[in-house]
């Protein structure tokens, strides 16, 4: 019980100590907050792009467009070939009229299309391959492109796959950035605690002389570092969340103008707790390193 009260007292004392130097404390918290908000922000950005690209590339499809002058017989011929093809899993015929209907419904282009007078779209097939590896898709695309009255064959998912690969690089960069800035956080805390130890040198020396154990001396500094890290984490969370909300406001407006709806994901509660936990842990680590490095130098005698 006394032990617990001791910790509570230390916590109280550490908060007071932070409050005694409001300017320095705020600056430290801000630096940590900004440093942590960078990887956190990029992480959210990547998550959003990833969600977006997943929606598009979940089912890689091939679009096959007939020439504008293709007759019903030509279309039936291609349909027959598709039905017989070993690599084609299923396919759907999209007539020019249906394609036009769909287009009018989806992207807010109704006005433009109705002004156009005639249907600019060709007949098309949307097909799914049995096997989604890039080589199969590519050979299917090439083969279908040589069929009579086939204007163009397109791998819909290709750009999404490239994007996905680019996202992989992005994730790696975010991890690297995160690791670097975590180290910066450790360094910032190390230095803050070093200064604290220097200003409280007399107190540490006297405490040692009158029977303070090393854990007792270490404790307030560990609390201080951890609290500062945690406060920095909260600052980072606020920066990311407020920025996300502001961005969302703008994006909603933009999406409305394009006739669709779109909302950015922000930090989930799981990501938030990881962010705060990590910030506190890095603060603890920095202060622990600092205390271990500097305390033995203050030996009375």
């Amino acid at each position, binding site marked *: 019980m006394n032990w617990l009260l001791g910790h509570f007292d230390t916590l109280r004392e550490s908060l007071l100590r932070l409050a005694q130097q409001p300017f320095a404390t705020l600056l430290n918290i801000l630096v940590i907050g900004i440093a942590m908000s960078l990887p956190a922000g990029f992480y959210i950005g990547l998550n959003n792009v990833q969600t977006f690209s997943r929606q598009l590339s979940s089912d890689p499809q091939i679009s096959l467009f007939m020439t504008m002058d293709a007759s019903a017989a030509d279309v039936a011929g291609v349909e027959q070939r598709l039905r017989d093809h070993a690599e084609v899993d299923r396919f759907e015929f999209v007539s020019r009229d249906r394609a036009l209907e769909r287009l009018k419904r989806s992207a807010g282009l109704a006005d433009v299309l109705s002004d156009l007078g005639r249907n600019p779209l060709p007949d098309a097939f949307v097909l799914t391959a049995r096997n989604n590896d890039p080589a199969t898709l590519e050979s299917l695309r090439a083969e279908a492109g040589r069929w009579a009255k086939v204007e163009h064959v397109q791998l819909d998912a290709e750009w999404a796959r490239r994007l996905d690969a680019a996202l992989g690089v992005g994730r790696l960069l975010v991890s690297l950035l995160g690791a670097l800035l975590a180290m910066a956080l450790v360094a910032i805390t190390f230095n803050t605690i070093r200064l604290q130890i220097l200003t409280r040198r007399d107190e540490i020396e006297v*405490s040692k002389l009158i029977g303070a154990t090393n854990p007792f001396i270490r404790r307030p500094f560990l609390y201080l570092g951890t609290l500062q890290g945690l406060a920095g984490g909260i600052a980072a969370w606020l920066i990311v969340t407020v920025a996300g909300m502001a961005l969302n406001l703008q994006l909603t407006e933009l999406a409305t103008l394009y006739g669709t709806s779109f909302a950015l994901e922000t930090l989930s509660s799981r990501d938030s707790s990881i962010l705060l936990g990590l910030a506190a842990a890095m603060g603890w680590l920095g202060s622990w390193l600092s205390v271990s490095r500097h305390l033995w130098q203050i030996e009375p005698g």
Partner: protein
Amino acid sequence: MAVSQMISVSHVSKRYAGGYQALQDVTFAVESGEMVFITGHSGAGKSTLLKLIAAIEMPTSGSVIINGQNISAMKPGAIPFLRRNFGLMFQDHKLLFDRSVYENVALPLAITGFPRREIAKRVRAALDKVGLLGREKSRPITLSGGEQQRLCIARAIVNRPAILLADEPTGNLDTAYAEEIIGMFEAFNQVGVTVVIATHDESMIERLGPRILHLDHGRLGP
């Protein structure tokens, strides 16, 4: 007889890095409840001897045994707990000038882990004993030399130590103040505290006729 021996120093030498020989083959014992003065010129090794007794430094050879525990054989982790048996008064006071009088006296109790209410009670009692009860909230810098010395005493006795070690407690004080301080030590000794005082001021103690250990260039004299 060994049970009542509070401090036992036998064949202790202390040589500092650089070759300075502070103490040489010093042997003596202090009984529990005894009051002993260590005298000698400055540089005779009085402070070194007190530091060895308080386990602040370790002897180069020989043994220092406090209440049955050999300080050279102790684990570093156990030394803080040994030190809590001591009330220490340092030559340079070592008061914390950024803390109040109250907080200075409360420090040893906070270190031991007393609950806050108990700390308040004991700090007031200690301040009362040295006549500083009204100055709790003052900063030590606003106290006079004599008052600072009394603050040091309050901090040294607040955890009710078995042994009081004082290094030049009457250092820069005029006679009246010094008498007062020595009187306090006598009072603590009368309630059973073992007291060891290092001083170069022998005139101060003639009146008391106490046991005197005289150091001369690191050796115990007659």
